[in-house]
């Protein structure tokens, strides 16, 4: 039994289990157990992976599994992981686990909620473990579609509008992506050999440069929409603001990473020449994303909007770093994905918990919460500090790796965009401290807040697991970084093997 199959089987079993349950108590228990098992599996996978590497296994992809499921188009259910996907799977495990606990009190249609949530998680897991483009795309869709239901039914505010907007924009991304993937499929096979969707097979050949020029923007923008690439990011604030807590967590924490991961694994890895040529366009867009998101976050008044814009900024940094296309920056991008996934999930969890108590998300109506809900307050401050890149937390490691990597380019253009992107650390500090200052500190504005109670046990599990992960990466980054670096090396080698004289 290949361990990777379990990542699909366990959620499916969990979904079946939830179907048999009757009420909230049972379904959340089943979900928690299922996702707990999944989390343990993720850690087992990390362990097994490191053990394999330690034993000297140098294959690019480990734990390969391959089964044909649509022979006439040569579509395979092909699985395999390298250090990058292992890291992303661990991230997913933690976030989903925390998400289940964050929705512990989901009174309205609990079974359906947990089922949708876990289907979403299945899609994400499947995306990270598959190495067949078509299967990857299938899981990608599987992850995106439940979002519509989750926001449309369990959301707040203008939920139908937001759900529709989010789904439509992401579907538009999928459409672009499909063009890209099919293009890769048809133009990647050398004459005489059968067409294939397998990434590892495709990476052995070179797609003709003309096709790359055409397909790269489709693929990159397709994934970029999910990664909140400027100017295709506007689904993110509305979607996040309307989504229920766990969905925001999963969406910002994990789903947006599909964009970054895909852009990296498919767009850049398979089409390096075009990537080198066109990188400058997207570098400009992403550096705008970074600064623009941060500036927008400064003036927002809704906690979720602030965080959504902050996600735009941080995810912009991910794509920015990927486009720098050297080992260090890409390593930083992966760490940033994980780090942002954890931090933003923590943020959304906290916002959900605070909202559940105060019944408002407008910061102007709140104040002095530190006094009444010290646990949540402290965790919020920790999340904030992590988000603005304080050493000891994961954000710092990620950002510094990115900036050092980005600075390895000697030309003026790259220097300028790097400095522009780096300036976001100041702006981030501004909006984070603004929120913390208004929300937690100062006098209590509403006497009704005096009766609030601090975090319950399940909320503590949810937040503490995330804080631990953030701190673990922040204080001991080397194992993660080395794991990623090992797998990055062949990819970067492939990318830098083609030196194209781009515009810059």
């Amino acid at each position, binding site marked *: 039994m290949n361990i990777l199959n379990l990542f699909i089987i366990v959620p499916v079993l969990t979904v079946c289990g939830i179907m048999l349950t009757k009420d909230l108590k049972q379904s959340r228990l089943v979900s928690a157990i299922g996702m707990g098992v999944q989390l343990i599996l993720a850690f087992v996978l990390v362990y097994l992976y490191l053990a394999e590497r330690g034993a000297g296994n140098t294959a690019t992809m480990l734990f390969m599994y391959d089964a044909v499921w649509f022979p006439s188009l040569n579509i395979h259910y092909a699985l395999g992981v390298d250090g990058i996907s292992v890291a992303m799977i661990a991230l997913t495990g933690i976030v989903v686990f925390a998400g289940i606990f964050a929705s512990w009190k989901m009174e309205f249609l609990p079974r359906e909620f947990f089922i949708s949530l876990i289907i979403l998680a299945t899609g994400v897991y499947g995306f990270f473990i598959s190495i067949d483009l078509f299967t990857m795309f299938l899981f990608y869709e599987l992850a995106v579609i439940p979002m519509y239901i989750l926001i449309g039914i369990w959301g707040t505010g203008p939920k139908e509008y937001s759900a529709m*907007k989010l789904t439509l924009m992401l579907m538009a991304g999928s459409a672009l992506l499909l063009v890209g993937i099919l293009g890769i499929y048809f133009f990647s096979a050398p004459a005489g050999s059968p067409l294939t969707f397998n990434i590892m097979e495709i990476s052995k050949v070179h797609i003709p440069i003309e096709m790359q020029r055409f397909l790269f923007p489709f693929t990159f923008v397709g994934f970029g929409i999910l990664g909140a690439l400027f100017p295709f990011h506007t689904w993110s604030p509305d979607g996040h603001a309307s989504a229920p807590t766990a969905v925001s967590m999963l969406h910002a924490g994990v789903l947006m990473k599909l964009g970054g991961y895909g852009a990296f694994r498919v767009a850049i890895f398979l089409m390096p020449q075009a990537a080198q040529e066109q990188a400058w366009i997207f570098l400009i867009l992403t550096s705008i994303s970074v600064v623009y998101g941060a500036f927008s976050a400064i003036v927002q008044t809704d906690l979720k909007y602030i965080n959504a814009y902050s996600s735009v900024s941080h995810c912009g940094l991910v794509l920015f770093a990927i486009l720098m296309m050297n080992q260090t920056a890409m390593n930083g991008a992966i760490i940033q994905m994980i780090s942002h996934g954890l931090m933003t999930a923590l943020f959304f969890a906290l916002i959900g918990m605070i909202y559940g108590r105060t019944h408002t998300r407008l910061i102007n109506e709140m104040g002095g919460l530190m006094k009444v809900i010290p646990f949540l307050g402290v965790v919020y401050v920790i999340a904030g500090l992590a988000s603005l890149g304080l050493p000891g937390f994961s954000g710092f490691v990620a950002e510094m*790796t990115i900036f*050092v990597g980005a*600075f390895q380019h000697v030309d003026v253009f790259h220097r300028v965009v790097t400095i522009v992107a*780096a300036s976001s650390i100041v702006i981030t*500090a501004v909006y984070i401290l603004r929120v913390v200052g208004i929300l937690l500190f100062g006098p209590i504005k509403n006497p009704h807040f005096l009766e609030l109670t601090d975090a319950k046990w399940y909320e503590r599990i949810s937040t503490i697991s995330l804080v631990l992960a953030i701190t673990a990466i922040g204080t001991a980054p080397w194992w993660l*970084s080395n794991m990623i670096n090992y797998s990055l090396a062949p990819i970067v080698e492939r990318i830098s093997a083609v030196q194209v004289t781009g515009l810059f």
Partner: protein
Amino acid sequence: MADYTYTLLIPLIPLFVFLLLGLTGHKMKPLVAGLIGSTGLGISAILSYATAFKYFIGSHVAGAGYASIKGFEVSWLHLTDKLTIHLGVLIDPISVMMLVVITTVSLMVHIYSIGYMKGDPGFYRFFSFLSLFSFSMLGLVLATNIFQMYIFWELVGVSSFLLIGYYYEKPSAVAASKKAFIVTRFADLGFLIGILMLSFNTGTFDFQTLTDPHGPAIASAGGAAFMGLSVLTWSLIFIFIGGAGKSAMFPFHIWLPDAMEGPTPVSALIHAATMVVAGVYLVARLFPVYALGAPDALMVVAWVGGFSSIFAAVIACTQTDIKRVLAFSTMSQIGYMMLSLGVSGYGGEEGLGFMASNFHLFTHAMFKALLFLGAGAVIHAVHTNEIGGMGNLRKHLPITHITFLIACVTIAGIPPFSAFFSKDEILVAAFHSNKLLFAIEYIVAGLTAFYMFRLYYGIFWGKNTQYHHTPHESPLVMTIPLMILAFGSVFAGFIPFHALVTSDGLPFESKIDWLIAIPSVLIGVLGIVVATVMYKKENPLPDKVAGTFKHLYKWAYHKFYWDEIYLFVTRKIIYRYISEPIAWFDRHVIDATMNGIAGITQYSAYAIKGLQSGKLQQYGFVFVSGTIILVLIFVYLV
């Protein structure tokens, strides 16, 4: 070479204390928490003294100079082939000196706080933050490479943020903490860019490699030029921006006076003795690079330092909040140190300024911490910061009075108190380098003596103020640290710094240049005399003087309107003219475009749906005509 691995414990013990108090402190009795904090720091202090003794005396071979030793180092994060972030401890003269300064002041502040913070509901929180700060600061000075320094630099910033905002229910404290963090963060961006440039060009973060006079950093001095300055110079200027931010140099000084919103022991520890001199330490740490590789950058340091010192001194003369006076005094004194570094050369006698700067840093830590703790005792007694609410306290607070007086005399540079020696060295260094800066420092020396004695008279002499309840002397737990620091202030000047802390590790001979020292003492005395005349008894003279220099007074009182400029930039420009338009743009242009696309789709859908009228005969007609046309096309035309 001696083994210094154990120095690792010096920062780690406060870290452990921080975690212990942070996680379990709320279940402890306050006093226990305070004792745990103080004990932890005490152990660190003892280890620091032991290290200092071992380094300077114990294992030192006479005449060989002081080497820099890596006591411990691990690889933390691998970045590129060349660049790897390490964590470790670096033992060399300045780091050992800083260890002593930090642990001493921190220990005093810990003990003092047990009395000062008594009864505060967040007692354990206060001590855990103090420990966090101590950890970060110790980690900063022990950093083996510039990136480790940056890591702890940020941690120091956040501990400062937490401690300034300690009274988080007070909006002014929250605002001040935010301001401090963001202003220093902005400067840190410069620091980061500087690090990136420096490390990219030299291929290393490591201080030992960087400061090696024959190493790659200094060798790259001649590199490519941008606006007439070499890359190395630019990177060092950027790094200095970071240092200037932390050290509250002009124009990043605005956070420092506001930071006085924090509890007074915090001001003493962070905003007087340790964190604010981090900038000085940073420049000192990279001094060989500055001196040998980029003299232009060093000139920037000197001028920023010099300007800040006189700028702050002028403002200090007009402030009425005693902590703010001390804050500007701190800024002024740090300006001295910066200037001293800026005018220094490398090696031997040339490096006098370097030695003087560190010497002054050392003595300043003692007397400024003393001043702040004394001010804290005063505030503790009268519950106000305003000089107007005080007066004639010398009988109520005898110990505080004496120690405060000692500190004031010290800062005024009167022999044989410690600052006389350190300040004299600075003046000598400046005299040999740049006469204009030298003149500025003379003026600043006079102003310093003046405003310190203005403060002193305002608190302990002057008018008879009626108090709600009679002020009483602080408990022993607060006065003992005062006395210890007073002792330090008096006698620290006799430490032979020129033999211990020098730019190249080799001792040199230095003696007091009386031609410079005597006028400086006279100027100090003059300042004291003027202050005595004006402030010892209540009289109309100060108002008259203020009236004479009305505009200057007003400008200085408003800190030359720098706060307002910053407010203008942040509130108006960044908030109103950048952020809000961007947010508006996002909602009304980008999002509207997306919604517009959706709208167009919907509109076309409505337009097309008109065809679907529900009129059966219309469908029939279209069907028939369509069939006819298709038949026509496929049977006859094709």
